[in-house]
């Protein structure tokens, strides 16, 4: 795994933060939509945008990772949803 700030490190230096999932507007969304956001996951294999943290430096960043092969496609600092 390559931290965008600290460079390539052993995976043991990183913490996994789960897939990046846009939050629906809590004020307008339905209970169902909210429950879907809170609990449901995109559990199928594929390339996902995930939160990862380099723990010694507490650096959060985004990793695009193919969960089928456990291969990291690229990593970069978070710059807003897209």
């Amino acid at each position, binding site marked *: 795994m390559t931290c965008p700030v600290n460079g390539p490190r052993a995976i043991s230096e990183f913490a996994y933060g789960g897939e990046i999932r846009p939050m629906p507007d809590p004020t307008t969304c339905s209970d169902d939509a909210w429950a879907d956001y809170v609990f449901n996951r995109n559990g199928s294999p594929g390339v996902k945008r995930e939160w990862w943290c380099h723990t*010694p430096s507490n650096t959060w960043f985004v990793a695009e990772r193919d969960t089928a092969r456990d291969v990291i496609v690229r990593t970069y600092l978070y710059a807003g949803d897209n």
Partner: protein
Amino acid sequence: MSAITFENVSRTPRAGVKGPGAAAWLAALDLPVPRAPNTWLPLPGGLIARLGLTEFLVDGSEAAKLAAPLVPGVYPVLRQDTALVLHGARLNELLLETCSVDFRALDLAARPVVLTSMAGVGVTVIPGEEGGMPCCRIWCDGTYGEWFFETLAGVAGELTQPGHPCNQGVTA
């Protein structure tokens, strides 16, 4: 084979600062600011290290300068870490046995700062060379300090025993 010497330099004055305005603020205090993340620059009687993008550590007498009034976007970081200086021919072996970073691959001329984990403890490391032998300065959270020191000293002790599996020249 020469031992590894440990020096506890936790008493040297130290100060930290972080935030989007930190770099500019330090410059305004006439401190040299390392450009690249995770690099350091020497200071009279100490050094200034850039930890990641927007955090800085000033070690040595110059740390006093950071007492200056803050400005928006600058947040002081109280530094109470344990600081060690390690030096010796077998230092690299000690690092290999406690840390997954390949320090020998680093370009010392670029003055690298390494934030990593050593023996399971988060550390900040500045590798260097002195008298033809590797040395490094390590900071870690003070509450881990005692255990960290004892553990490293223990490993270092083994490394000075002849016949120790990691003391065969072929793999040094």
